[in-house]
């Protein structure tokens, strides 16, 4: 143990030095102002081409996953759609990656980079599939791994899904630090990075996001080969933004410039993410609005100085679905398509059903991930746990869902309808967050151009919002 001051304030104050030592990236090279930074140069400077990424991933059992046509589900959607409507639904089976989710892509380049730079191990703070991905990729590169995981409420009870994810990390040989509820997870990450000198396999580094680019790239190539067209829409479960950012960038690299990028999250509005009481009243531990909305409207709230996952740069639409709708669709996937997959990965499938109903039959909507399933990571486990925690579970109209109180599982496919978020409102919310950092009257031309690119709008549009922002 070091003789350093380990108090919360002291460790947080050493953040920048710890980050620099644990990543080998000097973010100051890219930062142009408190708002703007050279995002594209930071991504380019990782030094990997798409060919490099595909090759590195192939070495560790990542990528080249199957793309399935969901025939019976597409037929079911067509039966409830207006004449001529009901796009073909395709599913990218990311559960086929080592460790069972797309997160293997995200961890793979970090593990390769950590090895190249001579680190002995890597650390990630996550309660999600990413922990298992880091552990699995580290194992294959001969590196040690530590996963810092938020697992329990103050009475020592944890969600079955999180318990399973911790088990998977340990199965792949990771040391797992299991913590109670709180944002101090970041403090614990910093402390452990400092103690060990390991590589920071943050979800939000350029390496993490570049690793996901192969997912979008593969989708483009697979759809073209089989259907001789580009996908019309790709639906992406959205939490921290890396899945969406990486996939969209990969689609762009492949030349899919007209493909609609649709984000989707489970609506958990009303539940506090750092609340000990609310912790076990969420039946989804990721892919929900508790991460999705704050990360979309301000990405730079993460464990690295500038976030490489910038979802609003690429997002065309944002759909919300309820927990009950996702559980219903998970069961439907099992019964109609004959594959069991984890519920969190089916969030985007739920939104794809809504989209397919409104799209023409000759169009293609791609669900870009699945995740493994098993004890704990299963919709029956999650619902059973919810019931034990006093949450009402029943069939009915999903509009009656109340996060943390009632889970309503639809009675029919027609009731799977989701809810569209207002993109302009999200963009304005992003600008308001930027205004908290630097008053709008002080924004330079460079700042305005950066902000416009970061929310997929024009500098003119950003300027038009200035009076309202200044008045706020």
């Amino acid at each position: 143990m070091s003789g350093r001051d380990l108090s919360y304030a002291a460790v947080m104050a050493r953040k920048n030095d710890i980050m620099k030592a644990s990543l080998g990236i000097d973010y100051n090279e890219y930062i142009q102002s408190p708002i703007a930074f050279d995002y594209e140069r930071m991504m380019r400077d990782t030094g990997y081409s798409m060919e490099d990424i595909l090759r590195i991933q192939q070495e560790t059992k990542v990528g080249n996953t199957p793309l399935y046509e969901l025939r019976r589900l597409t037929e079911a959607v067509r039966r409830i759609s207006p004449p001529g409507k009901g796009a073909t639904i395709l599913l990218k089976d990311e559960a086929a990656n080592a460790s069972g989710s797309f997160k293997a892509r995200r961890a793979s380049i970090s593990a390769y980079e950590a090895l190249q730079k001579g680190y002995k191990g890597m650390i990630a703070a996550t309660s999600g599939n990413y922990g298992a991905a880091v552990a699995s990729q580290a194992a294959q590169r001969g590196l040690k791994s530590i996963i810092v995981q938020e697992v329990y409420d103050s009475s020592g009870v944890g969600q079955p899904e999180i318990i399973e994810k911790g088990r998977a990390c340990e199965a792949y040989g990771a040391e797992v630090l299991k913590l109670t509820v709180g944002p101090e997870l970041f403090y614990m990450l910093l402390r452990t990075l400092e103690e060990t000198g390991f590589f920071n396999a943050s979800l939000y580094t350029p390496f993490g996001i570049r690793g996901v680019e192969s997912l979008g790239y593969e989708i483009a190539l697979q759809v073209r080969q089989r259907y001789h067209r580009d996908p019309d829409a790709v639906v992406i479960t959205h939490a921290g933004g890396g899945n969406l950012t990486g996939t969209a960038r990969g689609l762009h690299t492949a030349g899919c410039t007209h493909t609609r990028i649709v984000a989707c999250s489970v609506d958990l509005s009303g539940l506090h993410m750092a609340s000990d009481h609310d912790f076990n009243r969420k039946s989804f531990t990721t892919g929900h609005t508790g991460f999705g909305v704050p990360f979309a409207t301000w990405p730079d709230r993460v464990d690295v100085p500038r976030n490489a996952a910038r979802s609003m740069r690429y997002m065309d639409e944002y759909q919300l679905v309820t927990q009950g709708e996702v559980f219903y669709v998970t069961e439907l996937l099992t019964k109609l398509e004959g594959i069991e997959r984890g519920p969190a990965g089916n969030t985007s499938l739920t939104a794809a059903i809504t989209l397919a109903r409104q799209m023409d039959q000759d169009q293609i909507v791609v669900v870009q991930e699945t995740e493994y399933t098993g004890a704990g990571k299963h919709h029956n486990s999650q619902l059973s746990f919810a019931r034990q925690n006093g949450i009402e579970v029943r069939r009915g109209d999903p509009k009656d869902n109340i996060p943390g109180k009632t889970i309503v599982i639809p009675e029919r496919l027609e009731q799977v309808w989701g809810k569209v978020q207002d993109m302009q409102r999200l963009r304005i919310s992003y600008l308001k967050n930027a205004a908290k950092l630097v008053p709008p009257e002080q924004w330079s031309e460079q700042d305005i151009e950066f902000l416009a690119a970061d929310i997929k709008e024009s500098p003119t549009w950003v300027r038009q919002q200035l009076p309202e922002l200044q008045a706020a």
Partner: protein
Amino acid sequence: MSKIPKGTWVEIEEVILRPEERATTLPEDTRQTPYVMRVSGFLLHDAELGQRVHIRTIIGRELSGTLRTVNPSYQHSFGDTVPELLTIGTEEEA
């Protein structure tokens, strides 16, 4: 209490931050609880439950804390059957 021999796979618990040492931005309910860590490893010396001990984790790090569990295991399951799921996707609901 019985002695737990050196080398046993155990779980320890350690208070990382007491309530008054925690981040200032916490919701009221979380602020009243300590920030606690549990971690598993091989016991480095004979000990009894509740004692302060040292362990070696699976990657070889030495950590200390209060001995909490012997042979920590996973008991999570598929849960009690939720009957509401059973008929989804069957002819009954087609």
